[in-house]
């Protein structure tokens, strides 16, 4: 069975939470006791339908009280074909960083548009974020079709507007589906009201959309998370480097380079759960043994000799600032890429990205919550990386404030 991760995005009240509630409800993925609780709660929120399906994901007291989503909720459902991991993200601009959190490792973005309003600033913002994050597939759900008499023309107009707007974003694949999350049209069941629509229902779409096989032909990338050294009598010399293969594949006998140490050696042995294997593929949790003893430690990167990544301590990236406090020039930061950490500073704020037009505007030197900026970062130690558009695993990083320990930014390397 395959795994598909997707998230919902779109403007406040476009119906993201309702859509997920509907999807789970109509596919019979919600237990009866949960439905009972929802029915009881719905009476107190005053939504006129029998159950307010948004309450399924709006799990915090503050969310239920305000009728909005504040933080990501994760939901799950399974069909014969697939397991789905859903992130329901908030629509409020103020909570964009939470939207970013839910979106970061998704295979698919569902962006909702209210049929009455068409494209809004949030539609643009979320599309641009999806583009920056390199989400392989975007699905536009035109929702609340019940409020525009299910008119095909409304759907077609939004579709053509969106295609025009998104041209510059370089989105890989875009699909469109008209729905009514509230009434359930075309979510799980196809609908009489939308009989003019020839495509699949959302549910069918989710079951059939190809899950992009990400990295099999990619360069081999491995990072050490933890060194296993039992130091017992029998395993006195055992020294294994534990981590997941980030991309590509590694074989016993491969000539490899260790970064940032910058020495080369050979893979002597690969173990998966204490069993020796000849080859390890992307995603495999393994333990690597090298022929020579170097000072390999957590955060060291292991790559094949003929597939070297970039190695540098000056990095150009696009980051999203996520701290409530604005960026302060010269602020001391930690750069973290998977298990690699180094002290870092932002050398230069190059430009701010206008989140509605995707234009770059020269930076005025400030960076506030939810701003997207092009920056130059200097790290104390050299970083081994690939550009994010080439490799999502080695091109992504976060910045941590050394004082507060908070994650203050997330970035993708150019």
């Amino acid at each position: 069975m395959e795994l598909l991760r997707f998230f919902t995005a779109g403007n406040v009240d476009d119906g993201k939470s309702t859509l997920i509630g509907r999807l789970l409800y109509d596919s019979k993925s919600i237990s009866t006791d949960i439905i009972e609780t929802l029915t009881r709660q719905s009476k107190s929120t005053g939504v006129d339908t029998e159950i307010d399906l948004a309450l399924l994901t709006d799990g915090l007291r503050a969310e239920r009280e305000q009728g909005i989503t504040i933080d990501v909720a994760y939901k799950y459902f399974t069909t014969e074909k697939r397991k789905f991991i859903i992130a329901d993200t908030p629509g409020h601009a103020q909570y964009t960083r939470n939207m970013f959190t839910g979106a970061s490792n998704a295979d698919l973005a569902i962006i909702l548009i209210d049929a009455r309003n068409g494209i809004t600033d949030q539609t643009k913002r979320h599309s641009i974020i999806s583009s920056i994050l390199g989400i392989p597939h975007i699905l536009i759900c035109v929702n609340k079709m019940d409020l525009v008499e299910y008119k095909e023309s409304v759907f077609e107009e939004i579709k053509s507007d969106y295609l025009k707007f998104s041209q510059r974003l370089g989105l890989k694949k875009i699909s469109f589906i008209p729905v009514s999350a509230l009434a359930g049209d075309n979510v799980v069941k196809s609908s009489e009201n939308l009989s003019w629509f020839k495509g699949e229902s959302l549910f069918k779409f989710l079951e059939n959309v190809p899950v992009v096989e990400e990295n099999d032909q990619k360069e081999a990338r491995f990072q050490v998370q933890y060194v296993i050294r039992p130091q017992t009598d029998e395993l006195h010399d055992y020294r294994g480097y534990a981590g997941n293969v980030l991309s590509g594949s590694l074989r016993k006998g491969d000539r490899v380079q260790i970064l940032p140490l910058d020495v080369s050696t050979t893979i002597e042995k690969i173990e998966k759960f204490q069993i020796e294997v000849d080859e390890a593929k992307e995603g495999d949790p393994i333990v690597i043994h090298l022929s020579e003893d170097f000072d390999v430690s957590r955060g060291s990167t292991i790559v094949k000799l003929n597939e070297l990544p970039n190695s540098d301590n000056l990095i150009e990236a696009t980051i999203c600032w996520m701290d409530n406090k604005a960026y302060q020039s010269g602020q001391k930061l930690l750069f973290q890429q998977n298990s690699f950490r180094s002290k870092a500073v932002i050398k230069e704020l190059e430009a701010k990205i206008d989140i509605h037009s995707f234009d770059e505007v020269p930076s005025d030197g400030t960076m506030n919550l939810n701003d997207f900026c092009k920056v130059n970062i200097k790290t104390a130690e050299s970083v081994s990386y690939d550009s994010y558009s080439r490799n999502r695993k080695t091109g992504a990083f976060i910045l941590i404030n050394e004082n507060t320990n908070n994650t203050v930014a997330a970035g993708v390397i150019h």
Partner: protein
Amino acid sequence: MKDYLDQLEAEAIYILREVAGQFDRPALLFSGGKDSICLVHLALKAFRPGKFPFPLVHVDTGHNFEEALTFRDNLAEKLGERLIVRKVEDTIKAKNLQDGKGKFPSRNGLQTYTLLDVIEEFEFDACIGGARRDEEKARAKERIFSVRDEFGQWDPKKQRPELWNIYNGKIDKGENVRVFPISNWTELDVWNYIKREQIELPSIYFTHERECILTEHGQLMNVNEFVQLDADDVIVKRNVRYRTVGDMTCTAAVESEAYTVDDIIKEIKETKISERGATRMDDRVSEAAMEDRKKGGYF
């Protein structure tokens, strides 16, 4: 394409190794239930032939099932890993706390004191737990690395952004991080994994005959020394099993004819009631019971 169980397993192992790499004094909170037994299995895959870089810690409420406790002790011994047990009973005495009252006296709230004490005693900076997001709506909102302040409190408004598989476990002294490696697993995933990996479980997960009180809500509560029996209680003998192994006083059994893991998987696929809904009495108190407990330092 990798199978989804392989992907969930790899994600969990990655998280366990991040804990080992990022923290000085982690611990694995072990209850003897299926989720924490899976965690132990995953830890074996993550760290063998080395020892676990953390002890197993059990907060014993005193209301645990004997089978789960025996299983716990045997497992720790078989693996040769360190087990630390701290008893809620002792906390109640030491702190002069009010024990749970009523017909089904719960120590769920009291457990938090013992947990926070053991964290302080050993200066644990990370506590790994087997909570899953599909269990409850507040859990569905929690990060995989969930930072708690000095008082163990969760503040849902202050959660750190958590992107890709990059985990920020940096904290100040006195704070700790709760880590949930199987956040993205559902009850069914756990059972499918138990089946695939042939993981052993305490016997109470499988059907057995048991004397129970049939409550007014239709729940089957085990008859034991902690539960107050009343004259008008309806006592029944049924074939039951447990879906979760919590306290005897607040975990209900479900009727079942499941003798094997395969039977259980079939039952779960067919059941219309959620794991917590079928078995827990403690979440019925209010709509935000779990959120409030977490804000108070609970797991």
